[in-house]
């Protein structure tokens, strides 16, 4: 299955010639692309290619220095109100989970809804428990992040992002810090989320997941998208030499 049944034609993220520098280092060299509502895009490429930086510009954890990014009709600018509005619409899952170690798992999840969405404590906890149930870790609600496994922590982190009821989910190498046996439990949750119709941008090296779930695979190298295609074309008929090399290397093991 290449084209997901949930994908629509309405654009939700529009990037026009996005540039970014870290001091003198040109990380993003003019990214132009559009993501449709419900689309699942997998972003891959060698380390240092700018793929993480790119998805971090979508919720302004990194500031782009040239070009425009429009998320759900709001242009990302220095206006703090716009940034906060977009961050409420865009959930993010990090490679290192970044759970709040001083709060229980359920408080990690309810913090955003209570403080930002102004939800009542009871309603937020009820929603959080439902999410933990969906992640299959309802029994870990009142433990601290350090008391549960890495795979469980990453699922709490996904629940934390989903609690804000985002329209878009960004995943920044969500399984790279996990032990091999815990990767599949996180991928299962992401697969389920994909089928529910969420718009997802996933930076990952999990090519099996990419082939199965993605509508489009974008290959980044040195700050530019050098190839993008549906998974079938991408894996079986890569056009670019760099892509061919990458695929042969990642599929070897």
């Amino acid at each position: 299955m290449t084209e997901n049944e949930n994908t629509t034609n309405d654009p939700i993220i529009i990037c026009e010639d996005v540039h970014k520098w870290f001091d003198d280092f040109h990380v993003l060299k003019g990214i132009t692309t559009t993501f449709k509502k419900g689309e699942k895009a997998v972003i891959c490429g060698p380390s240092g290619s700018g793929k993480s930086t790119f998805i971090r510009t979508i919720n302004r954890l990194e500031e782009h220095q040239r070009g425009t990014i429009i998320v759900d009709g709001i242009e990302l600018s220095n206006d703090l109100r716009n940034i906060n509005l977009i961050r409420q619409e865009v959930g993010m899952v990090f490679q290192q989970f970044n759970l709040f170690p001083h709060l229980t798992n359920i408080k990690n999840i309810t913090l955003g809804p209570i403080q930002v969405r102004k939800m009542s404590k009871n309603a937020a906890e009820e929603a959080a428990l439902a999410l933990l149930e969906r992640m299959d870790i309802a029994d870990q609600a009142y433990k601290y992040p350090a008391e549960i496994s890495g795979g469980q922590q990453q699922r709490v982190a996904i629940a934390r992002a989903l609690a804000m009821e985002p329209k878009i989910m960004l995943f920044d190498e969500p399984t790279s810090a996990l032990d091999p046996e815990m990767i599949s439990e996180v991928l299962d949750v992401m697969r389920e989320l994909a089928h529910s119709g969420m718009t997802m941008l996933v930076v990952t090296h999990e090519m099996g997941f990419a082939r199965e779930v993605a509508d489009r695979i974008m290959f980044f190298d040195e700050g530019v998208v050098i190839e993008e295609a549906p998974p079938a074309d991408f894996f079986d008929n890569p056009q670019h030499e760099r892509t061919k090399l990458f695929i042969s290397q990642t599929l070897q093991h």
Partner: protein
Amino acid sequence: MENLTFTQEVKPPDTKKGPVKWLKDNLFNTWYNTILSCLALVFLFFVFRGVLTWVFTQANWEVIPANLQILSIGPYPLEQIWRVSYVIYGLAVLLGLSAGIWDGLTRQITVAIGCLGAIILLLPFEISVREQTLIATVILAVSFAIGRNKHNWKRWVVVGWVLSFPWTMMMLHGFGGDTISTTLWGGLLLTLILAAVGIVACFPLGVLLALGRRSQLPAIRWVSTVYIETVRGVPLIAILFMGNVLLPIFMSGDFQLDKVIRAMIALTLFSAAYMAENVRGGLQAIPSGQVEAAQAVGLTYPKAILFIVLPQALRAVIPAIVGQFISLFKDTSLVSIIGLLDLLGIGRSVLGNTDWTGLQTEVFLFVGLIYFIFTYAMSHVSQQIEADLGVGKY
């Protein structure tokens, strides 16, 4: 599958030792260790014998009970001492209620203070002192009983603690025509007030300065840095002098700040600079991913700092913060340099009395003991807080 030897539980080797074995292994294991241990024992024996002989046969402890009142409250007028009692009663009510509502540490502290009261009752103090102590202890116990499980009173008790400071100052100073000048405040009373105010005020100021020093805004960062570096570069005595001598010159003639207030301000401003650096150490220990994760769920930067960064940062530096508090408590003794009679200052003035000349050792030992009791209590409480918060666990 009969042969399951590999699943047998293997017990860890026994590492426990009896005291005799411990002595043999650690103090008398070689001939030179045996000699060193014997020499140390002889040395300790003579030191202890000397100290105990002095304490029980040579020291003249009369100086302490005779001056207990002045060591406690300084030259505060005796006919006004009911004011001090009322302050203590008020604090006893608050402490008792708090212990009833919050269990754990608050209750432990309260029980310790209650026991202290009971001990004072049994010691041969003057009747009036024991009477006041009895009333305070009873108030403490009664409010504890009333406060038990009254969880919806929490907010009011916190308000009460906040109001306890102006209440204390007003009670001690008096209002209307009948006032007691702060120049008459002294002894342990003054030491405790200075320390309490300094500790409570320097903490939020220090946190703000630490955040300011890490601010993105150059003006705020610059002001905080200059403040911290300047204050840290000046001795506390110099700041106390400046507060005492320079401040009155700058202020207009009609409005003069009280000497005790000036000392409070100087102590607070001084400690805040050190507090800021302690807190900044904690802030730097928090990975940037924490703020990013907080912002990714939509929290504004101030809320991310308040809910995510500060709780973790402060928890990490509790030992340093309490160290700062202890140091501040002892630094209050420097106010005698600007003519205030704190506990140590009063001790010295007692020695100026011809009746008690030559009794420095007794007086200073007693004063030192009081300082030790308070600082040790602070240190103990901090360890309890660390244990309660699970510092180092996660």
